[in-house]
């Protein structure tokens, strides 16, 4: 048992380190792509101007004649430009940008401000993260359990009408969630007028905590529903297929022959060995969903990270766009990491040399 944990721990360490290096490479690539359009340098320029502007607020300087003020301004911009290395070759700057990128330190936004009034890119992005996590956490958990549950049920009733219907409906998952989102808005907001077009909470927000929660729930209904509709049938299809393949294995037949109850067979003999591929599937879906979330949040005006990216596009705010890229890189890496660990914990082959028969 302890040995298992130790192995799992060292596996996690190695994986974590590898993933971190991968994130660093990813952020570096993002920075290169951004700077091919000169974007990163622009971010630094605007940060310099922000700082020098703040410096000039000093009353002593304010009293000087305009020409003198301009001279001081330009002098300071020049000093800072040198300090930030804008006069050096890009390779040198790239190292600095990379370090900033890894710490999500993208300086100050050009136009956007955070809800708390800050212009720091890090705050502008991170304040939206809880909303995104709330929406995607909820919808993914519902989607996952619902589809696994239904798939198990269908694999038991293989060939029934419900089974065939679910298979026939699988292609409806080809359009992404936001596509169904638009249709849901059309039906429930435009025509029936029972649910809001979008947003996070009513304006003004309800004063009581319960009222607030209910209002958020009401605003969440359509986005969550669109994610579920967009993913449910293909998820059911692929998991049902998995269960069917595994339930025709010899050891399952043997368990049946032994007369084990159906529930035990399902849990121990079918679900257990199919979990690792399910997890992989789930990971790929999650990654697709992070990206799809940008549009879904935009369509529903859900104040999450994706919507922020959309706002940054509208405001042409370079720093926020590059920062969002890096943050998404992190989010994807964390998803991969968490699922890796789950995978390792579930798949006995990963725990090489595990003491026979023991479970984690």
């Amino acid at each position: 048992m302890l040995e298992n944990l130790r192995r799992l721990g060292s596996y996690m360490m190695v994986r974590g380190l590898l993933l971190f290096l991968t994130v660093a490479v990813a952020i570096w690539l993002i920075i290169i792509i951004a700077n091919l359009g000169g974007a990163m340098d622009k971010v630094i320029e605007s940060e310099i101007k922000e700082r020098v502007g703040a410096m000039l607020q000093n009353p002593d300087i304010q009293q000087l004649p305009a020409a003198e003020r301009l001279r001081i301004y330009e002098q300071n911009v020049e000093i800072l430009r040198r300090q930030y290395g804008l006069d050096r070759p890009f390779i040198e700057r790239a190292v600095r940008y990379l370090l900033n990128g890894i710490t999500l330190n993208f300086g100050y936004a050009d136009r956007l401000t955070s809800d708390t009034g800050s212009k720091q890119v890090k705050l502008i992005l991170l304040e939206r993260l809880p909303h995104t996590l709330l929406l995607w956490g909820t919808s993914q958990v519902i989607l996952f359990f619902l589809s696994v549950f239904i798939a198990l049920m269908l694999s038991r009733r293989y060939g029934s009408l419900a089974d065939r219907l679910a298979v026939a409906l699988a292609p409806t998952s080809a359009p992404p969630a936001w596509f169904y989102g638009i249709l849901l808005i059309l039906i429930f907001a435009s025509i029936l007028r029972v649910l809001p077009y979008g947003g996070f909470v009513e304006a003004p927000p309800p004063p009581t905590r319960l009222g607030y929660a209910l209002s958020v729930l009401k605003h969440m209904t359509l986005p969550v529903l669109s994610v579920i509709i967009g993913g449910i049938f293909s998820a059911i299809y692929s998991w049902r297929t998995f269960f069917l393949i595994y339930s025709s294995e010899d050891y399952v037949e043997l368990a049946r022959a032994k007369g084990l109850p159906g529930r035990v067979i399902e849990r121990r003999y079918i679900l257990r060995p199919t979990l690792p591929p399910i997890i992989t599937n789930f990971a790929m879906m999650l990654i697709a969903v992070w990206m799809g979330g940008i549009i879904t949040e935009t369509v529903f005006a859900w104040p999450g990270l994706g919507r922020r990216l959309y706002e940054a596009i509208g405001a042409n705010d370079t720093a926020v766009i590059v920062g969002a890229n890096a943050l998404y890189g992190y989010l994807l890496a964390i998803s991969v990491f968490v699922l890796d660990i789950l995978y390792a914990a579930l798949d006995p082959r990963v725990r090489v040399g595990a003491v026979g028969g023991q479970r984690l």
Partner: protein
Amino acid sequence: MTLWMRLKELRRYPSALIGVAVIALLLLMSVYAVIRYPYSQAISLWRAGERTWIENPRNAAPFWYNWFGADLPLTVKVNLNEARLVDQQDLGGGVRRRLLVLSFDYPWRGGFPTEIALFYDTTFQRAAPQAVLSWRTPDGREVPLGTQTLRGSGRYLLSGDSTLARRLGAPPQEALFRDVRLGPNGVRADRPLPGRYELYVDLYTFEPDTKVDLRLVVYGQLHGWAGTDHLRRDITIALLWGAPIAIAFGMSAALTLTLWYLFISALGAWYGGWVDALVDRLTELRMILPLLPILVMVGMFWSRSIWLILAVLILYGLIGGSKGYRAMYMQARAFPYIEAARAYGASNFRIVRRYLVPRFLPLAIPAFVNAIPGYVFLEASLAILGLGDPLLPTWGKLIQDAYSRGALYLGYYYWILIPAAMLFLTGVGFAFVGFALDRVFNPRLRSL
């Protein structure tokens, strides 16, 4: 079994037949679009601005709304050469008077026109021609509309004439068409009177060589197969052109990347060691690189051209291979026929090229078909974010236009639903075929 025989097995799946039909329809649409509106013409029409489309109604719904009993008006146009000349007089000194009647049928009961405009094009030396206008309704009422000076080329927008609106007590396009009779319950119904309407134009020209051309346009509420947008553009053009763009974009990305994954994963799995490690690491890197935000960056900082986006998308895909294929190749390494190939001295690269990749090529066919909708919707996603191609009309851009102009609030549902239906058809059509192909080529799935 040959590839062709397997493909023929698709006939056993009704869903696949539907999918094939949908794809065939899209291909036909593409061919028609490219022939009917060549690339440059499509772009210039779509970017032409309001002048090109001035005779189309704004935000009109598709004409087939009337098939469902809407009875909404279409646009009516009457040219000068269709006009009836009732009277003409020579008043001396080069002054001429002509009384012209522009008449048209208005058979619709379901709604009023959206606008009424009199277009004119005149050439004269010093004194511009003048027109005294008057309106005759089918029930014989006469409404004087005042006098207009027809200077150069332009249009007199009756529906935008606030003085006229004040005099009539309602927007002219409604007041001039309203059925004023009292209903049986003594209430006046708010609906148009169907019948023959006439515009009397008493035209005075002051110079012998003055030329006048007139054209009356009564804008309806319906237009074309797909309606019009806020700039009066005919959505049909964008709808047609969306097909070749979506298919070219989706297919080229899916084809290139499917083949690449097949090849690079084989390379990694066969050579093993650092090659495998590198490919695997790169695959992981791709999983972590956020595709959509990167494309957003490209769109924001470089260019929004759809072909550049496609190039970046393919470059992104070239990073690494596929974990699924890698696992398959790992198993295939031990197959006897590979061993035989090694025994006769085939080089490593030859084994990858001639024995590994071809064996799994059929398995990649469903993957290729299934990948297409993803790329089509990716293009639409970028368009929704406002990063669509600046020149070409695409389905995603239509939805974005409609969405950002509040089509859902204002009730212009067709504007979103028609391009959405096209996207849906494309997505589901390819998915139908892809799912069936999966069963044909994946024997494990066949019995399920």
